[in-house]
């Protein structure tokens, strides 16, 4: 299955909407789309609502994006993580690195300042 990505820019930052599967075949394409957005320095949200599966290679790609964002001081947030993907990310420790939708919303009320993507 392929992966489609679309960018949407708004006042607060950039949203990248992904549709399909993130695996070893498609993660290179995702990385190509995400790295330029990270370098722009605007807060970045990755919307995974329409992503059905993230493989081991896919999770590694997301973590590479996180590490790049950390270097650049850019906040990266994952949105719309399905229950299955969230479970896999949680069991393998990847979820610990990211701000995810709900957690980010709760924190943004308390701390509106720009934050890094580290959740722990």
């Amino acid at each position, binding site marked *: 299955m392929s992966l489609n990505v679309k960018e949407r820019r708004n006042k607060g930052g950039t949203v990248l909407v992904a549709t399909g599967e993130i695996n070893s075949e498609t993660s290179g394409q995702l990385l190509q789309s995400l790295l330029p957005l990270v370098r722009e320095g605007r807060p970045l949200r990755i919307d995974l609502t329409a992503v059905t599966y993230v493989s*081991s290679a896919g999770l590694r790609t997301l973590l590479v994006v996180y590490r790049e964002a950390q*270097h650049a001081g850019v906040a990266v947030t994952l949105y719309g993580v399905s229950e299955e993907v969230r*479970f*896999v990310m949680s*069991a*393998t*420790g990847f979820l610990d690195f990211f701000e995810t939708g709900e957690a980010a919303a709760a924190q943004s009320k308390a701390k509106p300042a720009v934050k890094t993507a580290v959740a722990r």
Partner: protein
Amino acid sequence: MTEARSEQVLRVDAYPTHEVGGYRVRAGKPFPFGANVVPGGVSFSVFSDQATSMTLVIFKRGEPEPMAELEFPEEFRTGSVFAMTVFGLDHENIEYGYRADGPYDPVSGHRFDARQVLSDPYARLISGRDVWGVEPDRSRGYQYRSRVCLQDFDWGDDTPLGLPAEDLVVYETHVRGFTRHPSSGVTAPGTFAGLREKIPYLKELGVNCVELLPVFEFDESDNMRSNPETGEHLFDYWGYNTVSFFAPKAGYAATGRYGMQGDEFRTLIKDLHAAGIEVILDVVFNHTAEGNEQGPTISFKGLDNATYYMLTPEGYYFNFSGTGNTVNCNHPVVRNFVLDCLRHWVADYHIDGFRFDLAAILGRDLDGTPLPNPPLLEMLAYDPVLRHTKLIAEAWDAGGLYEVGNFPAYGRWAEWNGKYRDTVRSFLKGDPGVTGELATRIAGSPDLYSTRGTSASVNFLTAHDGFTLADLVSYNDKHNEANGEGNNDGANDNNSWNCGAEGPTDDPEINRLRTRQMKNAIAILMTSQGIPMLLSGDEVARTQQGNNNTYCQDNELSWFDWDQVDENAELLRFTREMIAFRGRHRELRSTSHPTGQVRESLGLPDISWHGERAWQPDWSADSRLLAVARCGTGDDDVVYVAMNAHWEAHDLELPALPHGRSWHLFADTGAEAPHDIRTPGGEPELENAGKYLIGPRSVVILVGRTPDPEL
């Protein structure tokens, strides 16, 4: 561009030089062995001394037939190592194996069969048994498939913890059994992720080291027996039958079906470390799942049988392990294999230590003769990567070699102290003539470890192999009928006592006595010098209904029943406070054996023995009462432990204390809860300073310290 991406370097070896079977390839690097991702491709490296040719077999993930078979060109062989880099592979979506061709001549030790696809001994991941208990498709030609794995886990600042050995409290448990019971309440029962959810329980209990039964890939379905009563299929539940030594068991991971068991296991280790808990793996290098002449060919048999296994002059398998074959551990190639394997688990998984199953075999020569200076044991002791890793031997084997106290230690190896287990069990049930040896065992077994210190002794009363603590006080005999072997399996010398009725009973007196005996056992274990090891579930009286060999029981007989945490809260509290007490008293964890030397600060010896009369221990054969007082240096408290295995109460005269100190009551297993134990530091002062009545079959622990005005 950020730093991480600015350092890309063009590499000469990123370009192919040959074409084999339609794939672009070049000579690989012989080291490291296994499949390693390199620029543009995957480098495959495998050893076989006698193979005449070697073929790399590649499958698209899950497909029954190979997508490619690439024979190693002759020029890709260095010595006896075949190495090839294959370009353009999607490493996540392939499985691989080898066909090794060579002589089939069992008398000479060779069993080559090029029809078989063999697992890579160095495979970091194995697929084929991805979800526990799923019946495998046995018609597939290649069951245990090697997979490529990236070694890029983000550990943050985690490293092995390096806790002092003498401070450990080891908790032996089974990854699946710990949370598989429906009462566990975890998201993914029976997995690494499930165990991770129970870290708060372990932390609250106070243990600082978990010892996991085997987690290397094994095949739980390789047991062909059934329960004779229920007809239920029996598993190879414990997993002492390794299929692949570098791969974590996929069926223990909630994400095993996605091939993410490595990440899931590492995440568990990382979080255990964050909670201050070390991880020791129970490793099995004495035999493999390939069995004897009738067993399956999985890997070693087909790659280099004569190197990896001890063989008789006629080419049959020596069997010092009791399971069919014996790994040829002191062959130079196999020594390196074991070393590489352990380095892998320390470097790539941050494992803190290893317990070696039937470790006496590791000291045998190529023909089985015990070696005076076994090179493998020496190598492991001095290896730079393993330098601070705990090494614990099960210092005996099934071939009759018993080395407890004599294991070649090189200043590094500790041992499961089987003599500690046998002596304390015997004392607890009231056997005569044990008091003298009990003193030796609780003082850290100086007769066995005089030059190695107390932390060479891993003290335990129960382990996975044998009765649980609750069964030790509930059964005189083993009840292993469910294993389908006519109750002939499992140990017969259990030193157990049922307290008056075999198995469960409604008799409140017997049940009270059993609870007291369990508390006595835990109290003695936690106040003995040496490293204490607790069997998972003993703190809540887990029962196996008298089965002392549940290797095949993947059910309630083996699983931790979490309802017992509430039902047996009294014993759990007792255990927790005993562990905390050990942590508070350095004198119990001293690395050197006591000598009787008087501590100048207190005017008391580091250890002193007492009976009904202070300073007068009774070493006679009929004595079933012994008290010990330990005294540390400086401001340490004095700890007095009286152990009465007699069925009658005794009046104890307490030794006098210097410098304004007085006796405070920490624990009395003869008292009803909650007065059986106190919180360490909150012990009330004894009203009658010089005396204490110890009840029948009870342990009393007193602390000699300065009174706290607030208590």
